């Protein structure tokens, strides 16, 4: 049952795996119903989206290098930050971890042969592609300049191509719903014998909570985006104050989805981190139930906090206070997780490998972003910081910082499982340092700028903000370079990386019980679980982690 290798054994590459069985060729991939192949396709697609969104981000930072116009005009700038937001949120952060890694890992973790509805799973991928294509068409035709929030009444009157971008996001919403639905049903019905809910890997718990949000919030977003599109195209007046409509109603609808959507992005990050922290400190998770239930707690409370985006939108002070207090509950649940992760490290046998480096970065970004979030949930402070760079820096720390750290941690931790190859550990740490430092240098200046009063989404700024903007652009360049390094060595390792073997990290996560890469049916015999994941206190299989080899020898 336990295929992890003893010291000195040569790692083997599983010859009959999902990459070459039952058949190879483009057609077999495009029509596949194998969750592993669909997961890999999602990973490739979302990585391309990540690169595109990052490209837009660099253009924004270049433009802000000088106080006046630098490389583009104001209209182009408005399009750039809109496209950056839309691509990063709808095309990368929402689907990347659940649809990519979640698809690949959940059936492996719960001992199933596939997700409950394999055809819906494939449909979800094609809906993602269709939505991306429609949104891309809108971008090529001139893009939108409304910001990713599509606030009315501007979004219903702008002359840019906002309708295709809205419809693209609408279609991607269905992809998200189908994936969430699939995961909930899979978790309920496909668990192998002996895998009780309290033995479920924390990754699955957290993705489950994400799926609940995806199912309950996305339809409302779909409807509100559709209403904006109808309004823009036909002028039905639902959000148009000139016709008696209420533009603030759109903000309510939008944030009813988009605030929980923040947890669609962060909960999967927490899912990854809960696995990584156990595997690299060789300890059982501290407070399993607390970590598991706090995911559900975040998902639940997340539905009642949307008003904190609207403290300055004419909401009553009483409403503002209630939403502020409710928002702080999220901080409590998040803190429960943070304390449990750090307690897991205590007296652990830590292997400071690349995934662990990203875990450390994650913890910093989550706590820093979270604490500024608590400050922003205080109405009196938010009135000053609203729509400044302070907000921009805050949500980049909490959403982008956490999600990107977790995405990269997941990539480095599960790359051997997905491809059967290893990533270079030395280059991995170099890139991790560049990315984490670059990220800090990009966004800490933005906290300061926001606190000094620089508003977000402005094309030009007074000269007193110049120095900090240069610092931010410099940080963004280091961040981008770090990501390019990751991309280069990942592509290199796909071809020339050393063979990993079934379980190079000697992890006790259930997904490592299969050969790497996994066979198409995952498990030839359905496993029977007798204990929970990551139980490192059981002596029989307690191998210490092996230091990762350098990529000296090609396979």
């Amino acid at each position: 049952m336990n295929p992890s290798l003893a010291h000195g054994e040569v790692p083997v590459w599983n010859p009959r795996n999902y990459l070459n069985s039952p058949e190879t060729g483009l057609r077999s991939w495009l029509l596949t119903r194998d969750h592993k192949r669909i997961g890999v396709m999602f990973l490739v697609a979302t990585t391309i989206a990540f690169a595109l969104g990052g490209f837009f981000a660099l253009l924004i930072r270049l433009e802000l290098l000088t106080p006046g116009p630098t490389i583009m005009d104001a209209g182009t700038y408005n399009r750039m930050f809109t496209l950056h937001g839309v691509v990063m949120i709808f095309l990368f952060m929402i689907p990347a971890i659940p649809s990519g890694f979640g698809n690949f890992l959940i059936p492996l973790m719960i001992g199933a042969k596939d997700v409950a509805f394999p055809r819906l799973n494939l449909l979800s991928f094609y809906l993602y592609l269709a939505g991306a294509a429609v949104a891309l068409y809108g971008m090529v035709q001139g893009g939108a300049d409304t910001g990713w929030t599509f606030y009315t009444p501007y979004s219903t009157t702008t002359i840019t191509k906002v309708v295709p971008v809205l419809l693209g996001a609408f279609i991607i919403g269905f992809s998200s719903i189908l994936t969430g639905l699939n995961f909930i049903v899979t978790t309920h019905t496909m668990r192998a014998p002996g895998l009780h809910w309290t033995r479920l890997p924390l990754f699955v718990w957290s993705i489950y909570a994400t799926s609940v949000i995806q199912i309950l919030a996305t339809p409302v977003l779909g409807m509100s985006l559709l209403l904006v599109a109808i309004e823009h195209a036909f002028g039905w007046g639902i959000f148009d104050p000139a016709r008696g409509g209420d533009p603030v109603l759109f903000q309510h609808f939008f944030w009813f989805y988009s605030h929980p959507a923040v947890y669609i992005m962060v909960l999967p990050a927490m899912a990854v981190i809960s696995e990584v922290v156990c595997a690299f400190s060789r300890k059982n998770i501290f407070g399993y139930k607390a970590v598991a239930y706090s995911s559900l707690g975040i998902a639940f409370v997340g539905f009642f906090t949307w008003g904190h985006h609207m403290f300055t939108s004419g909401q009553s002070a009483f409403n503002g206070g209630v939403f502020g207090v409710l928002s702080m509950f999220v901080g409590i649940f998040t803190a429960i997780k943070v304390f449990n992760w750090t307690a897991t490290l205590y007296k652990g046998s830590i292997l400071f490998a690349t995934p662990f480096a990203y875990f450390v970065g994650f913890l910093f970004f989550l706590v820093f972003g979270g604490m500024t979030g608590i400050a922003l949930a205080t109405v009196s402070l938010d009135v000053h910081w609203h729509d400044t760079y302070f907000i921009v820096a805050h949500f980049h720390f909490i959403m982008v910082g956490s999600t990107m750290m977790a995405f990269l941690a997941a990539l480095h931790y599960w790359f051997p499982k997905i491809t059967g190859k290893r990533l270079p550990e030395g280059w991995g740490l170099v890139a991790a340092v560049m990315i984490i430092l670059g990220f800090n240098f990009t966004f800490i200046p933005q906290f300061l700028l926001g606190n000094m009063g620089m508003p977000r989404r402005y094309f030009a700024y007074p000269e007193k903000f110049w120095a900090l903007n240069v610092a931010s652009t410099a940080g963004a360049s280091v961040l981008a370079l770090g990501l390019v390094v990751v991309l280069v060595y990942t592509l290199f390792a796909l071809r020339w990386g050393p063979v990993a073997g079934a379980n190079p990290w000697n992890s006790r996560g259930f997904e490592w019980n299969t050969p790497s890469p996994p066979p198409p049916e995952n498990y030839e015999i359905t496993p029977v679980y007798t204990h929970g994941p990551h139980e490192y206190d059981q002596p029989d299989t307690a191998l210490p982690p092996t230091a990762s080899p350098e990529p000296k020898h090609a396979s």
Partner: protein
Amino acid sequence: MPADTTYLAHHFESLEKQTHAARLGMWLFLATEVLLFTALFAGYGVYRFLYGDAFRAASHGLETWIGAVNTIVLVTSSFTVAMGLERATRGDGRGTRLLFGVSFLLALVFLGFKYVEYAHHFQAGELPGRFYTGEHVQGPGGPIFFALYFLITGLHGIHVVIGMTVLAVIGWRAGRGAFTAEYHVPVELAGLYWHLVDLIWIFVFPLIYLI
């Protein structure tokens, strides 16, 4: 080949689990449908609060008897769908086809009445937003009422058409003996969908016609 393996997908260990998964998936899907409409109902609530008099006047301009008849028609169609499912549990596929066919025809009656109503609104200029030329209601409340009216009933109408397609396909397959007394979960799921379409109308009718 025993019936158990005919319908069993490769990744499920038993038909029982597969049926459980299908049912759970359908209920979750219905939850998303409810939330899709909830956004519109919430919008209705907000504007009714803002433009109470105009909404009342616009609502009185509707033909309540058409709404009432349509409610009865839809509830009856739900009843025949339930009867069809009952036939399916006894392995009587032809009975299912007949009863689903009746539901299909009742849905057509519903759409026919809806057409009469829509035609009347178009003639009276009771249209959404900037297209509104009606004289019955003054102020911005009227156009907004009809924007919501067309959005809600239009989306519901689309669901009726989807539901009719589902009933037709499943009914036709049932008539060809595709299901058995042991395995008829598609019939059940089609029925669930149709009941949801019915249930949403139960909320639409009082909101738009009565209050």
